[in-house]
């Protein structure tokens, strides 16, 4: 017992030292300014008003000097304001809530697996083990075509799912924001695995009768991180085009991509990927400044595709029977970790407070010069962000990130609960997580949110948002009827 007390007081003392250090470094300018200001005030008081006037007159200012100086000031100010990037606001977003008729309980999934994979009981067992440990719940949804034994993935069914998900999300978004179809200037749809002709973007333009001079883009094949790629693209476009609205639709269409073979490495996506989609309204209009929910501060994209292993770790190919599926490599987690490290190395200097950056610099110098084998210092990102939205790619991804970034259970709660309620909805999962945080009433004005997504390629993309106004608990949205049941305890292994 006595040993614990010194440890406890030692750690408490350390905590206070850390707090003091952080406060000092983060407000260093204030601390430096105060003595300077104090000095000036004392000097002014000492000199007295006549002396000050004398000093001012001695500068010999005449009208030309005054005019030139003011022009210079105005010129510099204009250059500054013109070159400042436009503020991009997220006005609002809507997530698709699948109907209860699409629900897939574990038992149903296993029974269908058993009937579809009659000849490979080992594969069925494998799927059962994955499902038990997946972190998914009993309410995740698959599209209607996949409910058949065997699944019935026609192109018509895939289009049907796309229409259902995308149109529902956009309808909800339009209702929430009041934006009219003729007001949409930019439209970006990202869906990795289903890319028909005409594109999904064209499908939206057709349904909502959007303008003929709309700037539309359809991103396919870019994996689960494509949602943030679309946001980045929208941001760049909104820099060039003033006074515009952009709609970004992120979704993944499951129907054509359900793997119907028996290869274990390719069965994993079947267990995790579920129906979902989100539509987001971005704007650079000044009048949206007050009603927007978030302001986009940073987007950082990291692509590890130059490395062969990273490129091949999530790979769509045919199995020995000619059935197409997505193969996930065994070292996926390791590659994800590396991609994350790259991303936060770029992100760190942009968002971390000065105290953390100094610490990182010192430990880096110390490692380089004195102790090459020392552990790298992981900056405390909890000081830079209040909320974290980690792509709900799977339980392992969330666990890995929680460990790497040293996050608490509450920080990853949004991700875990989204995985439980909706499964891995690919690029739209970040928006379900953000909605969870809002639904719990935790989003306050000034809060910073970090969205991290991983995707095939291998890519790690992050976006940082700043909350523009305290958000009231939404009365609609996908969490509306179940938020009271959350958070739930998700057991390590669910007994099926």
């Amino acid at each position, binding site marked *: 017992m006595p040993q614990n007390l010194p440890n406890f007081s030692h750690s408490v003392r350390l905590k206070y030292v850390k707090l003091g250090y952080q406060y000092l470094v983060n407000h260093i300018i204030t601390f430096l300014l105060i003595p300077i200001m104090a000095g000036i005030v004392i000097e002014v008081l000492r000199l007295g008003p006549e002396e000050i006037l004398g000093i001012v007159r001695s500068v010999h200012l005449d009208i030309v000097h005054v005019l030139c100086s003011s022009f210079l000031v105005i010129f510099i100010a204009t250059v500054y304001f013109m070159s400042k990037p436009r503020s991009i606001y997220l006005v609002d977003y809507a997530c698709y809530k699948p109907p*209860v008729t699409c*629900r897939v309980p574990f038992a*149903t999934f*296993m*029974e269908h697996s058993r009937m579809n994979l009659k000849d490979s009981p080992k594969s069925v067992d494998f799927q059962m083990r994955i499902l038990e440990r997946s972190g998914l719940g009993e309410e995740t949804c698959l599209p209607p075509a996949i409910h*058949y034994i065997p699944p019935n993935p026609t192109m018509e069914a895939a289009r049907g799912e796309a229409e259902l998900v995308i149109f529902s999300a956009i309808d909800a978004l339009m209702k929430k924001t009041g934006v009219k179809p003729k007001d949409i200037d930019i439209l970006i749809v990202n869906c990795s695995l289903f890319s028909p002709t005409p594109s999904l973007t064209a499908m939206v333009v057709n349904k909502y009768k959007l303008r003929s001079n709309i700037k539309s883009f359809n991103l396919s094949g870019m994996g689960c991180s494509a949602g943030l790629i679309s946001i980045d693209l929208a941001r760049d476009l909104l820099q060039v085009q003033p006074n515009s609205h952009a709609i970004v639709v992120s979704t993944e269409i499951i129907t054509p991509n359900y793997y119907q073979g028996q290869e274990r490495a390719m069965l994993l996506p079947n267990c995790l990927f579920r129906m979902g989609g989100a539509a987001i309204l971005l704007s650079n209009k000044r009048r949206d400044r007050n009603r927007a929910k978030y302001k986009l501060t940073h987007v950082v994209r990291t692509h590890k595709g130059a490395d062969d292993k990273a490129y091949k770790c999530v790979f769509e190919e045919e199995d020995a029977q000619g059935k197409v599926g997505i193969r996930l490599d065994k070292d996926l987690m390791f590659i994800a970790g590396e991609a994350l490290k790259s991303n936060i190395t770029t992100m760190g200097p942009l968002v971390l407070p000065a105290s953390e950056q100094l610490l990182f610099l010192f430990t880096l110098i110390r490692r380089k010069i004195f102790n090459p084998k020392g552990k790298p210092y992981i900056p405390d990102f909890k000081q830079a962000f209040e909320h974290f939205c980690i792509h709900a790619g799977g339980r392992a991804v969330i666990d890995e990130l929680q460990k790497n970034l040293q996050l608490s259970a509450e920080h990853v709660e949004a991700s875990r609960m989204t995985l439980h309620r909706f499964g891995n909805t690919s690029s739209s999962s970040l928006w379900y997580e953000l909605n969870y945080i809002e639904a719990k009433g935790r989003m306050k004005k000034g809060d910073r949110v970090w969205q991290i997504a991983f995707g095939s390629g291998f890519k790690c993309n992050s976006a940082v948002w700043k909350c523009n106004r305290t958000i009231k608990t939404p009365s609609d949205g996908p969490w509306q009827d179940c938020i009271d049941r959350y958070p739930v305890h998700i057991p390590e292994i*669910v007994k099926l």
Partner: protein
Amino acid sequence: MVSSDEQPLVHDIRLSTVGPGRVTGQDVVHEPTNMDQAMKLHYLRGVYYFKSQAVQGLTTPNIKEPIFTWLNNFYHTCGRFRRAESGRPYIKCNDCGVRFIEAQCVKTLDEWLELEKDDGSLRRMLVSNQVVGPELFFSPLVLLQITWFKCGGMSMGLSWAHVLGDAFSAADFMNSLGQVMAGLKLAQPLKLAQSHISAKISPSPPKSKDPLSVKRVGPVGDHWIAANNSKMKAFSFNLTSTQISHFHTKVCGQIGTNQIPFFECLCAVIWKVVAKIRDGPEPKMVTITKNDPHGRKNGVLSNGQLISIVKADFSIMEANPKELAELVLNQAMDERSTIVEAMERDQGLSDFIVYGANLTFVDLEEADFYGLKLKAQKPAYVGYTIDGVGDNGVVLLLPGPNNGGKVVTLIMPEDQVLKLKFELKKEFSIA
């Protein structure tokens, strides 16, 4: 069964699963009672036929969607069987769901019913033949088949594991689907009654002998169907109210006081016919099952029907039908407590068959089969049969589509069917 063209009569069959919309929760179980376990080797197969007016504008998704709401009240029918450590089966309510089969038929409803008159076995194409097992984990207890006819008519085939409840419960189950589809809220409590030993059966001193109305079979293990010595075949015939009253008067005398009900008269006559045509000793015992209104709580699915045994100590072939009918009416002995007893002694592990252990007469007149209403219209016809019937055969008396009419369905060994048909035609003066 393939018609002269390439396309089979019933084609385009697609399987899926529908379950309850609401999450039932972890570790919810339903324990069948001893009486339920006694009936586990039997399956009810019912087909409800609807004319096109009743289903106009309905599509398969229109039927699937309300099923999710409907099954919230019957979540235990969506579960799957497991075995406890003692080996006793119980249902894990894991929301696995009921199997949903969609099919198309090349004939119109009227054409189909005509075809069925000649070959009753065609009806098997409209309802699933599946039984529970050999993998209990993955065996649905309820299967629904929706078959669309060329004219726009539709048939709904219910395949029902008897362990869930008797035919009266199955009828209530289906009727509540009609109510949900009409947008009505179900009155039943959402929490089903927990496992209970049927309170109406009074505890009797432990008897060491088995009940007479059941036969021990197996052990069947996890494949819940008993083997038959002879192949069983089903056939039915409709009776109009005129034929019924004519027959009734013939058997039981003038319509008046103290009249023996039609069911008992039917039992007596068919008993005699079977005794006549069967090789070997005549059946001296028959099992009678009927509705027990006291044993059924509204909305709860259970095996509450009355099962009784009738023993005759005189020759059946020479007996007076009226006497025999009176015997059936008055001397039937309730065997339910004995059955429950026997099952309890074996801790729910025995395998029994009830229907067909002796010649069995099942009175389903009070089953509300025509209560399943779509667009406020009742079915044009409802036919039920039982699978897993023993070699001694079963006779079912069902309500008919029109007031006063009835349907008699017999499930007998194949080799006796022709003779039976001949004799019964004589008895009932059917053309």
